């Protein structure tokens, strides 16, 4: 295990935070637009440098050394109740590099992509980006569940802010709220699980928990329930079925945001959390089995929905959901390492796909793939980069996607999860199919007659895409050359390649050679086709549950409040008023009646004196 220096880790955290503070508090700076962007980009570059230094200067240590450094946050008798700190092991350092790198590239890309935005909005955008980078890095470096939860929520907030960046668009505002609420649903389980774990063990911190788990001394009743609740947080954040419905709608945000948050970093937080807490999950195989099944099912489901989408960004969104399913399946199969590997490679080429899609959208002024075509002839470099990323996603050798997918499939097979394995194999076929469907429709075929001026893509966007393409190739070649072999059986790579090839061929047949009419194909697969187009009615189910259950419940509670709670109070006050009105009739204003009262009183006194 390699241990990094806590000071450098804190530097990595501090730089984006300082940038955020500067942009948030110094209004003139934020409103100036370009200078604000510059501040954020420079801070990010610094953070990347610090993360790289962190990785290079890490020292190898023995396995049982505590990789975390803690400071007391909520002091109490007998040790602090909650602590903050950093946990700097190999996985954390790799994530730091990934997050800072992709953030930097996306921020540079945004410089051109959002060039037409008013300066004040641009400053706001970069402030959100800095906050997001800080939050994600804090999440990754967390030494315990409490700190991780705090940053988890911050990341969710940033997602809301960035999806709803164009807040005056109703669809964007709705999408931001939907994302927030759906992930919040998962977070309910997360926080419940964390608190129950703390109640049982007395600590939030990973190191003591993992030590106890590995030594077999962790005595917690209902650990399966607790870990399931914690997993629910990952279900929401990493868009597993059924809480995946927010991710496609999140495409309302700017494309660079989608590249950063909904491909490489935020959505991977759930996978990261499960991988990080794996020693605890290992104690509850039933939950792991569930994670694997849900992951595989999510992968397949999302892939079917991607096949019928017209919007290029939505295809990529469903693709992300699908790949997240792969990662979670690997987690559930007992190979968090494979999951993490796929996480990092996917982060790189999915970001490239999104950013490339940004250039495509910028060129055609539409998201609809059926209105695109023939871009490769005009922009071969963009096409080349996009093709590299697509091949990586489809899992073709020697690109990194091939190796990481192989690792995942091998792990699932090793765990003897046959049905999930079959689901994942089918998914890889569909992945190749829908991605190449997009490629053929966008880059090849006939250009539709559009009379727009098509200037070259701005340098920043182009350069970032080329950089990512080079990185993808480099990762793949490194894996190929170091002889990185997965633990699976020998026939596995050939089978997965064969399925990928089949998918590519089918896509070529239908969309390039036009040999098979797509309509006839959908008709042949009618039931699945209809369901996929309707997104399996999940959105409707959620909306119905909200309207029926939640609103129904609030109406009941409202009724109780109005008629029971208020009713009691109103009855009391009405009773008091009525009593007052009745008693008031004693005050007739006639002196004789008062004398009558006095006489009665005297009589009573006399009787009482007599008796006493």
């Amino acid at each position: 295990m390699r241990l990094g220096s806590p000071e450098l880790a804190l530097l990595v955290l501090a730089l984006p935070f300082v940038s955020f503070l500067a942009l948030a508090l110094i209004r003139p700076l934020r409103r100036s637009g370009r200078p604000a962007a510059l501040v954020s980009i420079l801070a990010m570059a610094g953070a990347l440098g610090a993360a790289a230094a962190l990785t290079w200067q890490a020292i190898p240590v023995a396995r049982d050394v505590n990789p975390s450094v803690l400071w007391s946050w909520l002091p109490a008798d007998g040790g602090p109740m909650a602590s903050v700190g950093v946990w700097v092991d190999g996985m954390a350092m790799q994530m730091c590099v990934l997050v800072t790198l992709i953030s930097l590239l996306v921020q540079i890309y945004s410089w051109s992509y959002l060039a037409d935005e008013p300066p004040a909005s641009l400053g706001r955008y970069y402030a959100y980006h800095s906050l997001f980078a800080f939050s994600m890095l804090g999440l990754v470096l967390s030494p315990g569940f409490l700190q991780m939860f705090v940053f988890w929520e911050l990341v969710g907030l940033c997602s809301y802010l960035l999806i709803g960046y164009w807040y005056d668009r109703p669809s964007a505002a709705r999408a931001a709220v939907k994302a927030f609420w759906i992930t919040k649903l998962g977070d309910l389980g997360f926080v419940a699980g964390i608190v129950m774990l703390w109640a049982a063990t007395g600590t939030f911190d990973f190191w003591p928990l993992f030590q106890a788990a590995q030594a077999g001394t962790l005595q917690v009743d209902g650990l399966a329930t607790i870990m399931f609740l914690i997993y629910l947080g990952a279900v929401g954040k990493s868009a597993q079925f059924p809480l995946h419905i927010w991710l496609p709608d999140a495409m309302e945000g700017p494309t660079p945001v989608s590249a950063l948050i909904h491909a490489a970093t935020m959505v991977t937080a759930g996978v990261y959390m499960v991988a990080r807490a794996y020693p605890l999950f290992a104690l509850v195989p039933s939950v792991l089995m569930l994670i694997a099944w849900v992951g595989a099912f999510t992968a397949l489901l999302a892939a079917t929905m991607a096949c019928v989408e017209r919007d290029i960004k939505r295809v990529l969104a469903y693709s992300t959901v699908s790949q997240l399913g792969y990662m979670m399946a690997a987690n559930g199969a007992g190979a968090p390492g494979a999951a993490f590997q796929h996480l990092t490679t996917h982060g790189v080429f999915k970001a490239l796909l999104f950013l490339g899609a940004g250039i495509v959208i910028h060129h055609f002024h539409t998201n609809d793939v059926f209105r695109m075509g023939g871009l490769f002839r005009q922009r071969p470099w963009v096409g080349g980069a996009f093709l590299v990323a697509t091949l990586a996603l489809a899992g073709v050798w020697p690109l990194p996607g091939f190796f990481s997918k192989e690792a995942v499939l091998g792990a699932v097979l090793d765990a003897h999860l046959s049905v999930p394995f079959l689901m994942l194999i089918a998914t890889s076929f569909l992945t190749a199919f829908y991605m190449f469907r997009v490629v053929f429709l966008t880059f090849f075929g006939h250009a539709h007659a559009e009379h727009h001026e098509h200037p070259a893509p701005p340098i920043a966007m182009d350069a970032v895409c080329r950089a990512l393409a080079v990185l993808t190739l480099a990762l793949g070649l490194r894996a190929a050359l170091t002889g990185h072999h997965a633990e699976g059986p020998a026939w596995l790579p050939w089978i997965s390649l064969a399925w990928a090839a089949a998918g590519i061929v089918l896509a070529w047949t239908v969309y390039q050679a036009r040999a098979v009419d797509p309509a006839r194909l959908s008709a042949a697969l009618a039931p699945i086709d209809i369901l996929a187009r309707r997104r399996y009615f999940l959105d409707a189910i959620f909306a119905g549950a909200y309207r029926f259950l939640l609103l129904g419940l609030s109406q009941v509670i409202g009724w109780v409040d109005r008629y029971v709670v208020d009713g009691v109070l109103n009855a009391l006050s009405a009773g008091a008023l009525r009593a007052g009105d009745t008693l008031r009739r004693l005050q007739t204003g006639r002196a004789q009646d008062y004398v009558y009262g006095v006489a009665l009183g005297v009589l009573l006194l006399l009787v009482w004196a007599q008796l006493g």
Partner: protein
Amino acid sequence: MTEIVGFCVAAVVLVGASLAVVLTPNLFHAVLWLAAALVATGGIFLLLDSPFLFAVQLLLYAGGVVTIVVFAIMLTERLVGASIRQTSRFVFNGAVLAAAVFAAIMGFVLQGGAVARPIAGGDQLRELGRALAGPFGVPLQLLGVLLVIALLGALYFARAED
């Protein structure tokens, strides 16, 4: 012997006149019956060996008060002829309450044992004078003040409306 006869006569007159005061519909007649009751009370005082008070009662009460009331009735002359049927709804209740109060007082009165009647003392008037000048001097002065205030009050009310 004479005392018993005197007492019975005075008592009968007193009670009868009182009932007449409260029951006559004609207010003027009621005032006259009141005069009779006050005189009967004077008689009672006489039986109780207080001739001075008998004189005071006749002068002030039977004389002064009755005169004032008669004047007041004449100044508010619309009232002659009001029939008892228009008396307030409390006739029955009032009678019951009055009877109850009487019964309660009786309870106390009849409880006490017989009290010996002491022999009538010496010159009552002189003693009275000495008491008024001596121990009861201050209340006497205050009474004087009260009368002045009452006079002023009555004068104030009697002034012409402007």
